[in-house]
């Protein structure tokens, strides 16, 4: 036992060292060759990044494609570090008062079928994403509401003209779903061809996909980044169960799973394999929320919603839940590591974020009494997925019971869960989540607006909408930060429209011979695999 604990400590230290001191990985000389085998839970509906939303597609298909710009693969934890992928030089600064972005496109880049890349391909891609013809789906059209036009002054220049300046444009551009397609393919085969066919400029070429089993890619010798990729190929193996994925890494049937495992799985793998396992950890751009249904009494009363948030001891919850679940960080509306995120001092001013839980619970009971519902009884609607929904849901119920509330839990399988949350809206309080790829606070915080399409609280709050509009219009970061605090205070504290439990925490234990991959604050990011190599 003590041996296992010692192994765990050593490996965690090694892993943390690798994760934090990223330089150590860079110091090693990459080796060429080998096939990376990784497991992917879940099935990809199609190969078309422009219409899909699941990481199950990104993990399998992203290595075949390039983006115009991407999150810096050597520094993916920095939410504002973007680099050119198919463009040249640095990511351009806007001109004309922040409304014009001009990108120079790399020359000599070829699609896997040999077609040369030009600015026309970039335009065709973004026209499909931003201005799809009627009847053509595009999942992220709303990310680009500010874009007025995409033009190509010459074969290697693309200009994005915005209607108004916005800080959310560049992060939206780096979204990993924005695969660059060939104009020729779109013209010749139509807008649905990419659902079932792959032709990109990415580091790997498509070989075979046996649905439900594996997808295979082979090195693209004409890849536009010289000397990359290091791998000869990759094999994405479908593994439906997390337990199986963990054992697959233990038994070396796969080297890594990119989405992440709970803490117990990390500890088990490290205890079993010691320094043969490396662990990288990161805050995760996913937040677990509870949404009170404002259409149902007594949740239309802000005092009741405030009592709900006051009942949660987030600081101790973080300490204990992070040992058993994929949650950890106490935070507000913005991803905790971002410059717009609240500091601990700022958080403690919000209801439910104080460090004296007894005082918070006393206040909660007082508010419930004032609202005429002492001993409030309700049902928490939850999703039938263990991590982190059922674990955190059970913790929340315990917290509310300690505040004198009588809460039970209704757990539904995913389709029924969504049906109740989005269509029927018959829940009292429901767990919900907000998971994004590129950290883009100004876009991400729309989740808290009653008018937002992915907000299920059924409320309207004009003052909150006004604050948000001011955030959008503001060009000054300091002012934006101050406005976001106002927004946060109103959404989470004064009105307590939604309750944040904890932000997710990403844990990736994997075989130590896998090098070059760096954890990002999202399971959608850094999946191009062009910098991954095997030390074997």
């Amino acid at each position: 036992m003590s041996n296992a604990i010692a192994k765990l400590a050593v490996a965690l230290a090694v892993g943390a060292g690798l994760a934090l001191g990223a330089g150590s990985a860079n110091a090693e000389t990459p080796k060429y060759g080998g096939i990376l085998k990784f497991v992917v839970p879940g099935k990809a509906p199609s190969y078309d990044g422009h219409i899909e939303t699941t990481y199950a597609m990104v993990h399998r298909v992203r290595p075949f494609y390039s983006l115009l710009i991407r999150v810096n693969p050597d520094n993916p934890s920095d939410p504002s570090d973007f680099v050119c992928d198919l463009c040249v030089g640095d990511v351009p600064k806007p001109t004309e008062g922040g409304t014009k972005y001009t990108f120079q496109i790399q020359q000599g880049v070829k699609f896997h079928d040999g077609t040369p890349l030009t600015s026309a391909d970039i335009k065709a891609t973004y026209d499909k994403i931003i201005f799809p013809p009627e009847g053509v789906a595009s999942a992220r059209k709303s990310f680009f509401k500010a874009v007025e036009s995409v033009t190509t002054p010459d074969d290697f220049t693309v200009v994005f003209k915005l209607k108004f300046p916005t800080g959310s444009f560049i992060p939206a551009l780096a979204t990993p779903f924005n695969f660059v397609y060939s104009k020729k393919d779109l013209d010749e085969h139509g807008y649905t061809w990419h659902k079932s066919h792959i032709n990109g400029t990415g580091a790997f070429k498509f070989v075979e996909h046996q649905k439900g089993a594996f997808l295979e890619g082979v090195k693209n010798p004409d890849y536009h980044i010289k000397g990359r990729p290091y791998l000869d190929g990759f094999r994405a193996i479908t593994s439906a169960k997390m337990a199986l994925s963990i054992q697959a890494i233990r038994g070396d049937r796969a080297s890594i799973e990119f989405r992440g495992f709970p803490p117990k799985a990390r500890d088990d793998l490290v205890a079993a394999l010691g320094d043969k396992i490396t662990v990288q950890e990161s805050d995760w751009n996913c937040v677990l929320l509870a949404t009170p249904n404002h259409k149902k009494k007594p949740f239309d009363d802000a005092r009741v919603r405030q009592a709900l948030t006051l009942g949660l001891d987030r600081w101790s919850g973080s300490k204990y839940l992070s040992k058993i679940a994929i949650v950890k960080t106490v935070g507000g509306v913005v991803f905790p590591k971002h410059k717009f995120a609240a500091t601990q001092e700022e958080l403690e001013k919000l209801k439910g974020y104080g460090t004296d839980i007894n005082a918070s619970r006393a206040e909660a009971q007082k508010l419930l009494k004032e609202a005429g519902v002492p001993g409030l009884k309700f049902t928490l609607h939850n999703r039938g997925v263990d991590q982190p929904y059922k674990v955190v849901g059970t913790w929340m119920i315990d917290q509310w019971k300690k505040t004198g509330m009588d809460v039970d839990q209704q757990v539904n399988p995913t389709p029924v869960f969504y049906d109740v949350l989005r269509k029927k809206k018959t829940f009292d309080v429901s767990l919900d989540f907000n998971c994004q790829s590129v950290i883009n606070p100004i876009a991400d915080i729309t989740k808290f607006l009653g008018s937002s399409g992915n907000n299920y609280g059924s409320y309207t709050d004009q003052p909150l909408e006004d604050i948000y509009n001011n955030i959008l219009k503001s060009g000054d970061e300091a002012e934006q930060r101050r406005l976001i605090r106002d927004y946060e205070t109103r959404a989470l504290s004064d009105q307590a429209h939604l309750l944040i439990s904890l932000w997710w925490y990403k844990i990736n234990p994997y075989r130590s011979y896998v090098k070059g991959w760096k954890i990002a604050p999202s399971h959608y990011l850094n999946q191009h695999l062009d910098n991954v190599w095997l030390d074997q």
Partner: protein
Amino acid sequence: MVKYLLKRLMLLIPTLLGAAVLVFFLLRLVPGDVCEIRLAGTGLYADPAEIALCRKDLGLDQPIMLQFFHFIWGYFTLDLGKSMWTGAPITHEISLRFHLSLQVAIMATTVAIVIAIPFGIISAVKQNTWIDYVVRAFSIAGIAMPSFWLGILIILGLLIGTQAVFGEPWMPPIEFKPIWEDPVWNLSQLIWPAVATGYRYSAVATRMTRSALLEVLREDYVRTARAKGLPEKIIINRHALKNALLPVVTIIAIEFAFLMGGLVVTEQVFNLNGLGRLFVESVGAQDFNMTQQLVMLVVLIFVITNFLVDIMYAWLDPRIRYS
């Protein structure tokens, strides 16, 4: 005999039609929407227009009776439609997985028969001896233990055992290769789920063999055979066992049909890309097209298996043959 077979064959048509009606309409009662899950399943905002477009593409905006007509018409045109999740033809999705599920079912059935028939006979012949008690305990353990749990124990045992002995943990392959491509790989992957499910399956069949044989051994004609001085081996093998096998054959056939689509958890434990896993994934994704065709496939397998059992009954029992 021909009349008997024709009668059984004709019964297949209303059975399949009834199943088709039930599966189609019951699935529509399940709350949820494949487009919602696909476009907004990760918590993203999904434009209602996008969801409407997706529903239109999948034909979900059509009147339900028209959807039912297309479903039934597909059987006449041999077009089972496309998966609502992957967009691939359902025949392709099923054929990819059918041979794996079939192989596991055959292997598990073989394991079950090899264990159940001899153990059942020994247990009946040696009734109330220590051998009988051991066999009964073994079979009760098999019934009590879910095969997926046994599967998990097998994988963990292999990982821990091989690491202790060889220094490196080993587990069965998690990718399937057909037996004609790589027999060693194939068997090293499929033998474990076959044992895990075959054990539970054998436990049921062992108990059935034992009780059926005990009943037959008390029949008058067996007493007569013994009185004539026939050796016990001939009495059991030639006279008793054949009659005792009727219920055993039924159990084996039903279990075989169940294995073809029912290994939902065991297939996930061993990462087998079979029909059971496809079933679970289709239900989870609200892929009605795929789910209803899989249900119909399982119904068809059950119906055909029962038909074959009926034929076997006629072979085993002359009373049926000559009736």
